[in-house]
């Protein structure tokens, strides 16, 4: 006895049914009845009823599109390997009664499908954003940096130096080393800090000094040639020590790794140079903030060591004059843009900060002879090849 009424025939579509056991298919007639989806097999005259509540589809149902339905996956009956019902498929091409079907099975609609995916997505994103803000606010990178043992930081610092200066000679002479040590000791002792710092001059062709993890400071030969007084050099060293005291090198490395991972995550797991560069702007901004912090700590060291701040001021004045583009050439916008792209605050800004700081009493740092010896440290025939600790 057919349970398909005449009225139901108006809501029928031709379709194809696969039983999930093999890829063979049968042509069927599908009827949208009140109680269930009725699948009629003309060859065997049998009817299979699929309850609307059990229907599922990989694609939301839409008018004008093909649809294919299956039953919701149940836990397969463990002992019944012949239960293929969850793999059975019903395929309907160009069925005009999709709207009626959606009335019976609203979970198959596009809206329902979107809601299932997007609602939890927004919650997850909001939570992640909040966690990101918290992590950024408490400077998680710095906390991690502080927890690293000194030996690990020193190892990393040695590796950084080796990577940058390998096959380079470090400058060394007995008298030059002694003069440099004098400046170093005065800054370190006055700081009352546990960090000892090691300072070396490397034969690098760039005007730079840098601090690495583990309180290592490298001065380039060109930097040594640029500075014109022991006080200028002390200013540079004090600034780099400021980085070391605040664990900026360590924090910077952890930060960079975290940013790289975060940007790969947010930007869709894209690898390659460009996604690595995606963190560049943020790192630049962070870099300027750390430079300002190192300036402040360095100034404190100079004050306690009773080293004249004039040296540092002279340094930035000459640096600005000789190495930065004059402001009258640049428009305000260009200058502002260059500042955004720079890792350091402009020398003019740093100079102003120094000049605004009240003076303090100072004592002689190095004698003229000692200063000459230090300046000649790289011209000594006895240069030492870098050795790893």
């Amino acid at each position, binding site marked *: 006895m057919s349970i398909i009424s005449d009225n139901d025939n108006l809501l029928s579509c031709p379709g*194809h049914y*696969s*039983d*999930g*056991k*093999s*890829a*063979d*298919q049968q042509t069927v007639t599908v009827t949208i009845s009140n109680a269930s989806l009725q699948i009629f097999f003309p060859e065997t005259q049998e009817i299979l009823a699929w309850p609307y509540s059990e229907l599922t589809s*990989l*694609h939301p149902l*839409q008018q004008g*599109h*093909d649809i*294919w339905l*299956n039953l919701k996956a149940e836990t397969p009956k463990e002992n019944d390997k012949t239960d*293929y019902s969850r*793999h059975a*498929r019903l*395929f309907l091409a160009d069925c005009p009664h999709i709207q009626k079907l959606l009335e019976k099975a609203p979970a198959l609609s596009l809206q329902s499908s979107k809601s299932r*995916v*997007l609602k939890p*997505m*927004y919650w*997850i*994103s909001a939570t*992640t954003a909040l966690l990101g803000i918290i992590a950024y606010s408490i400077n998680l990178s710095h906390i991690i940096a502080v927890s690293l043992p000194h030996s690990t930081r020193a*190892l*990393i610092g*040695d*590796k950084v130096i*080796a*990577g940058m*200066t*390998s*096959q380079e000679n470090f400058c060394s002479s007995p008298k030059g080393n002694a003069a440099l040590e004098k400046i170093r000791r005065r800054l370190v002792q006055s700081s009352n800090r546990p960090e000892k710092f090691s300072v070396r001059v490397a034969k690098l062709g760039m005007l730079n000094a840098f601090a690495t993890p583990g309180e290592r400071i490298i001065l380039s030969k060109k930097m040594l040639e640029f500075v014109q007084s022991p006080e200028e050099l002390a200013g540079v060293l004090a600034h780099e020590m400021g980085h070391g005291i605040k664990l900026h090198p360590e924090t910077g490395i952890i930060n960079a790794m975290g940013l790289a991972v975060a*940007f790969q*995550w*947010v*930007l*869709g*797991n*894209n*690898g*390659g*140079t*460009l*996604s*690595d*560069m*995606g963190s560049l*702007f943020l790192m630049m901004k962070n870099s300027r903030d750390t430079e300002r912090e190192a300036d402040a700590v360095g100034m404190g060291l100079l004050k306690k060591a009773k080293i004249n701040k004039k040296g540092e001021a002279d340094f930035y004045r000459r640096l600005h004059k000789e190495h930065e583009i004059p402001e009258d050439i640049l428009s*305000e*916008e260009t200058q*502002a*843009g*260059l500042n*955004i792209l720079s890792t350091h605050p402009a020398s003019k800004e740093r100079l102003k900060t120094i000049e605004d700081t009240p003076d303090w009493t100072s004592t002689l740092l190095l004698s003229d002879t000692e200063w000459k010896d230090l300046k000649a440290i790289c011209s000594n025939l006895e240069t030492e090849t*870098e050795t*790893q600790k």
Partner: protein
Amino acid sequence: MQITEQQPQAETTTFGWKAQSNIAKMAFKNFGLQLLTLGFYYFWGKVEARQKIWSSVRIAGQPLEYSGTGKELFVSFLISYFIIFGPLFFLFELIDVAITARFGAENNYVFWGSIAFYTLFTFYFSGVAQYRARQYRLKRTCWRGIYGHMTGSAWRYGWIYLWTMVLLLASAFLLMPWRDLKLRKIMTENTHFGEEPLQFKASLDELLPTFVMTWIILFLLASPFLFVLGKWAYPWMAAAIIGSLTLLRPWHYFSRDSAATLKTWLYFSLPRLVKDKASQLSPRTKMVVVASTVLVLSLYILWIFNSASLALLLKLTLKKMIKPGPLMIVVLILLFSFIGTAISLIFTTYYSRLYNLCARATLFQGHPFALKTSPWGLFVLTATNFLLALLSLGALMPLVLARSTNYFISRLEVGGTLDYSKIIQSEVSLKASGEGFAEAFDVNNF
């Protein structure tokens, strides 16, 4: 009256493409959602794109289905990144630091040794990742309710992938056809649809003449550049080889990098633009937008240097092994561009042959497939897809992949009539762990 019993008409197996919806629109929507959800939607968006592409493929008029979920991909990614490879790479870094401290970084054995180790490690796990990704996708692909699956071991495949890659490089790519067929044979013969396995019977003889001609032409075209580089050749060539491998990667890798560029620009420029009213942009805002746009355009050029080659170039420069100058940079960019374009053009002839041969060599129920790609058709497809990806900065990647699938499916046939009643559902478990390895190693990842 004679009654003639009619034999049931066997279904002919045809392959076709019937797009279910506007894939371009979906691609842009997913792109936006990905940004809005800080990247989380990437996995669900990938699933949606695959579902649309799979369902557009019609076999005997009925669609393929993709039943993977975003949650599976996401969890697999988390496990691979944060539990397996993240800690592993951190450990490698610590070991590297210790070895460098002990032996010194100027020790060339240490330097090149670490590069060799990372390269071999990456090759091996790239192979493993490819195999596992394919295993996963087959288990999530069904037709008329019958699922695919793969047998065999991904770990074993990884070793074969690795040592054949080493031989490939050592042979200056002369062994490419042999390797291509070897790897495809493993993949194909381990592929099952239901309980029915595929077979693969290919002959290298059909591929060699085309490949040898291709290789010779490429070598002749590249050799003037090698000559020009002259005494700079050694360290630069190491970087150039690594860099040009970038261009050998599937073109859609470029689209992902360029997508990252756009997103970076959006993140840093757009908030400022929104903050200042568009008609009243402050000089500072204008400068930031201009500067960041210039940087973005510069990064396009820098894309040619992938991370590995850029890192190597920087390291070699700092070690004073090479002396970069503007002329060298320009030469390198031209070299990479030339090599990349030449490879794409010349190799379409080879790849067309390869794809057609692999289809002929693949048998299902004893019937071979047939694929009718042409070098010119393949080149036009690749070039137009490249432009689509480039101009949309990666957002339209689902569309370009749909176009590629459409191209191949529309040219595919099977010789003979398949007996669908003999394609039986396999009892292999459908449990699969997602594509975390493929995400981690960035291989064949759509």
